[in-house]
């Protein structure tokens, strides 16, 4: 527990340093923030354009798809904000600068998570929340407090699953330093996948993201329950509530692999 607090404190300190470092290049900060905002809004505009031609997509209305988009965006945004630079670990391992992290009195995980922190990633979360509001206004689902709480839970568990995937990819880079793109295809690619309802994809793909890389638990599985839809894989009803368990298992697995990774870190000759 002390170690976790130490880690969080160290994380905060390093994030502060990176934040001030980005302010050394204000123009670049503003431009990339703007660029990111445009890209993510274009993504959502794509969905709206589809719905200007059809009323339903795989049996889902525009509000429902927007809800999927919003939850996936918020989850990925949170994970990206806090752990997004895990994919840079390979570069750090390759040039040996992990050495300088290992001599600081802060757990390595916290330092790698905070490495090259960029605040502009808040943008994705903000956009996700705006779309979420719009989707709920469209749907007017008449949910109770419990169901809204479940929705919040979906976002948090989704963020944990995305985060674990990022950290898992990061840990893997102790051995394979150029795995960053494989990892990005799972996380960013997974996000694109989850922005649309599962019914538009083939069953094999849906099986793959349920059993192999458990992305379906980020939003699909619990949202189908919230929207009173049938599961395309026909899984038993209790599976809809497994997201927290999946998140916990993923995080535990990541923690384990991370330890092994740090132990086998080889540094570079100097």
């Amino acid at each position: 527990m002390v170690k976790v607090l130490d880690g969080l404190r160290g994380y905060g300190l390093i994030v502060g340093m990176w934040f001030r470092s980005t302010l050394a290049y204000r123009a670049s900060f503003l431009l990339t923030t703007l660029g990111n905002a445009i890209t993510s809004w274009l993504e959502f505009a794509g969905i709206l354009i589809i719905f200007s031609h059809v009323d339903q997509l795989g049996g889902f209305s525009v509000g429902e798809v927007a809800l999927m988009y919003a939850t996936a965006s918020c989850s990925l945004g949170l994970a990206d904000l806090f752990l997004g630079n895990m994919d840079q670990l390979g570069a750090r391992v390759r040039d040996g600068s992990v050495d300088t992290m290992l001599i600081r009195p802060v757990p390595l995980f916290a330092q790698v998570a905070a490495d090259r922190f960029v605040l502009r990633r808040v943008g994705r979360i903000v956009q996700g929340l705006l779309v979420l509001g719009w989707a709920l206004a469209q749907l007017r689902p008449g949910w109770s407090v419990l169901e809204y709480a479940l929705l919040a839970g979906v976002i948090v568990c989704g963020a944990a699953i995305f985060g674990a995937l990022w950290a898992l990819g990061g840990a893997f880079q102790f051995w394979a330093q150029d795995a960053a793109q494989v990892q990005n295809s799972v996380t960013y690619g997974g996000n694109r996948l989850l922005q649309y309802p599962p019914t538009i994809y083939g069953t094999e793909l849906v099986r793959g993201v349920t059993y192999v890389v458990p992305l379906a638990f980020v939003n699909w599985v619990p949202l189908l329950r919230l929207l009173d839809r049938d599961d395309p894989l026909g899984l038993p009803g209790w599976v809809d509530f497994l997201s927290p368990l999946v998140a916990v298992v993923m995080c535990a697995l990541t923690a384990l692999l991370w330890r092994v990774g740090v132990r086998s870190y080889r540094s570079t000759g100097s």
Partner: protein
Amino acid sequence: MDGMAASDGMDGTDGMDGTRGTVAGGDELIVLEELEKVFRVRRRAGRFRRTRSEVRAVNGISFTVRRGEMVGYIGPNGAGKSTTIKMLTGILTPSGGRLRVAGIDPQHERTRLARRIGVVFGQRTTLWWDLPLRDSYALVRRMYRVPQARFRENLERCVELLDLAELLEVPVRQLSLGQRMRGDIAAALLHDPEVLYLDEPTIGLDVISKAKVRSFLRELNAERGTTVLLTTHDLTDIEQLCRRVMVIDHGRLMYDGGLPGLYEAGAGERQLVVDLEREQPPISVEGARTVRVEGPRQWLAFPAKASAAPLVARVAADYPLLDLSLREPDIEDVIARMYASGDGGGDGPRAAEVPVAG
């Protein structure tokens, strides 16, 4: 099964001995016992085949460093110097042996150890590239939880002795190599570490920066009693700073003792290079042997301990001497000779040229 039980028992005794040692002596800061690091290397052998081999970077090293010592850790490239330092700081996990720094096992309590040690890598900086030097120091204060008064005192001291006053507000990326090195050394000392590791602290520095760094380290060791362990290729670092030298090669400790003893152990030779007026048969002179002739230039080897003056006088008296220079054995050469003496003489020394007369 019996074997396992026996080794368990031994481990138990080891632990107890260690504890007793620290309680009784209290001044053994760094203890290595048969420390090993083995790297498994995969090499390409053909288009798809890969061969695996083992590299013993550190191959059973044992030594003890007492509190307040200043030790030079030297050896050729790839000898295992940096690997040892990296195990001492907890960066690398040892493959075998036992290791304690200030009573802490670096592998298992790396972050706790980090508060008590300072590390400077000559080739790498811990400072924040885009921020003023002062910001990096402020981070150290908060990260290591250094009390404000203590921090101010330490910073003032470092700023004064390392000449940093003008640099505190400058972004690190704008500092020269020498300035950055001084900045890095200060950063490693703000939390009052008990031991300071320096990996090539003077690499790439000019003469003035080197002198500043050396005098600072000397003072740090004398006044604060900070234990210092440094690796270097620069013999002058060792000569000016360390009373004790450890030489390692191929992952083994070759020598552990004073600097004069090292020269004797290496049976070092200096070389006198003479330019004659014309080509001549090899010079024969007492106290030296001619090792090479190239046109009018000849190389004479003589023991490092002997004075060059009488030799120069003798050569000048008997031969038409135009010019001469003296080559000192460098540390790598002394080490090379330590090996050569083991298997019966080696080739001529690669030495730094020190001109004597012009």
